[in-house]
């Protein structure tokens, strides 16, 4: 018998560098490049919008961190720093949160299709937000808090439903996700019917993803949650690497499976909750971005989770820029753009693997 009976086909993934594994150095380089790209995109997209701003002066003002007005009128300055930049940063926080949550669910549940939107977790957060709006309308904090609770409850529901004798197989998981999603969707529709026409229109728009919300207080919270959440999940990346291969394998090799599962569920729910509370349901980010990250950088979560975070931020910033410029001065829901890009991209990715 020959030593290798395997096919001599090339590896279908591209592991940049010649190494057979992901190293600290590779991770560092990849994250540095992505961070640079993110910074570039933030600056470039700040120059784009429904109102024309002089590029040179805007760039000058941006690079001075807003300290100098650089020949911009005060209106232009306000547009740049009070409207555009906060919106771009919010897009980054939402994109990063959703992509990280998606990557973590996929690793933990061993399912490349696990995504906050598809599993109904986004809907859970949306229901939580609706309850906050209807019953605690005045308080700003009630929305992210109840969104988190909604996301967590939806996660638990999906997990319990999916758990059979043989553990949560991907088929059972997808089925459980469909059940929870559709159930919560009908709850949302039901509550919507109790609203009047104007509220319905604005709520439907929000449900599809709307980053134009102007809660100045919640932006730093959203960013903080995105950063902290990504750090915590990356800290569990090595355990997730093993869990990705099988719960039993991971257990045998020394992973505290129960503890890691709790951490991932809690943190991912927090990430999804804060995103949905801020901007409604932006779908496909948690599905497509982690896939792309793994395809190009490998499955090692120590790299693919932070890479997904940065990539998700990039993706949603670009999608949101399209949403707010394509039919300017009107706006489109950003969730529609992410779906328009995400769905075909996902089909293409499926065909490749």
């Amino acid at each position, binding site marked *: *018998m020959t*030593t290798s009976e*395997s096919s001599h086909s090339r590896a279908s993934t591209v592991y940049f560098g010649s190494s057979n*594994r992901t190293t600290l150095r590779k991770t560092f380089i990849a994250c540095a490049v992505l961070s640079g790209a993110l910074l570039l995109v933030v600056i470039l997209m700040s120059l784009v919008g429904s109102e024309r701003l002089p590029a040179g002066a805007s760039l000058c003002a941006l690079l001075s961190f807003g300290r100098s007005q650089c020949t911009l009128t005060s209106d232009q300055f306000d547009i740049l720093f009070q409207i555009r930049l906060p919106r771009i940063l919010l897009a980054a926080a939402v994109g990063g949160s959703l992509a990280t949550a998606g990557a973590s669910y996929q690793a933990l549940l061993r399912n490349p299709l696990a995504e906050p939107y598809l599993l109904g977790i986004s809907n859970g957060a949306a229901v939580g937000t609706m309850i906050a709006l209807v019953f605690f309308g005045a308080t700003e904090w009630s929305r992210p808090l109840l969104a988190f609770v909604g996301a967590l409850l939806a996660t638990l529901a999906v997990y319990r439903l999916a758990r059979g004798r043989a553990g949560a197989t991907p088929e059972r998981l997808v089925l459980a996700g469909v059940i929870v999603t559709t159930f919560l969707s009908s709850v949302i529709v039901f509550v919507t019917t109790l609203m009047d026409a104007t509220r319905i229109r604005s709520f439907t728009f929000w449900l599809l993803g709307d980053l134009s919300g102007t809660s100045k207080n919640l932006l730093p919270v959203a960013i903080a949650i995105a950063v902290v959440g990504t750090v915590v999940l990356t*800290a569990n990346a090595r355990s997730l690497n093993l869990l*990705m*291969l099988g719960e039993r*394998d991971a257990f045998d090799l020394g992973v505290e499976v129960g503890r890691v599962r709790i951490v991932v569920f809690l943190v991912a729910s927090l990430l999804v909750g804060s995103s949905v509370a801020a901007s409604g349901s932006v779908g496909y980010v948690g599905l497509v971005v982690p896939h792309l990250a793994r395809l190009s950088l490998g*499955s090692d979560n120590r790299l693919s989770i932070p890479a997904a975070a940065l990539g998700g931020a990039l993706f949603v910033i670009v999608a949101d820029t399209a949403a707010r410029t394509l039919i300017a001065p009107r706006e489109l829901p950003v969730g529609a753009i992410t779906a328009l890009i995400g769905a075909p991209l996902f089909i293409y990715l499926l065909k490749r693997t």
Partner: protein
Amino acid sequence: MLEARDLTIKYGERVAVANVSLTLAPGQISAIIGPNGAGKSTFLQALNGQLGPTSGVVLLDGQPLEKLNRRTIGRRIAVVAQEAELRFPITVLEFVLGGRFAWAASASWGWETEHDIDVANAVLHETELFELSGRLMNELSGGERQRAVLARALATEAVVLLLDEPTANLDISHQSTLLALVRGRCDNHGASALVVTHDINLAAQFADNVLLMKDGHTISSGRPEEVLTPGLLRDVFEVIVLVDAHPITGVPRITTVHETHRQV
């Protein structure tokens, strides 16, 4: 050293394992054989804490398993089982490096050290997978993948190896190779191994100690020659067997005798 004392495992009313005891001594390979539903795999799962026993205790170096944390157990006990379906692309090297998890300095973060890489490479050489280190796991054949699973278990440098049907999907050449590797570990590093297998002849060839189970009970335990007797095997497997000595190795050789043969 791993010791199971009077282990009973029940699923509700159903008794899967009843009062089974076993000691895995260093340098020894033990084999568990028995028909389907005898409780072999269930018993094995209790030995590293996967399943909690209803009664009885498992002692690792004198300490009960419940008192030890997963990483400690992971450093001393390794499992080779049917490999779960791989849904994400991963190279052979990355897969084998997974075995070094329990040795990481911190609980879950951290990167592999030079030593980890050396151990992984050594094990890859040992299992003749070194040339395939950069390949993706799902590009390997079934036999190669099973060797990779063994390589990962060996990479943990555990002193106790638990193997659940490790040769199920392997052809005869690879079956012997794999068990020879285990034998080597036990002889050279003082490891102890427990192999659950359907293949009685393999057990006879490699094991120092055989445990015969049926319906959760220990029917017999001891050296292969003592346990693998026609009488006991007929009672347990309900089949007629012929046991003679292998002409070259001298170990018991078991062949079944079918109705059709008796016509002759």
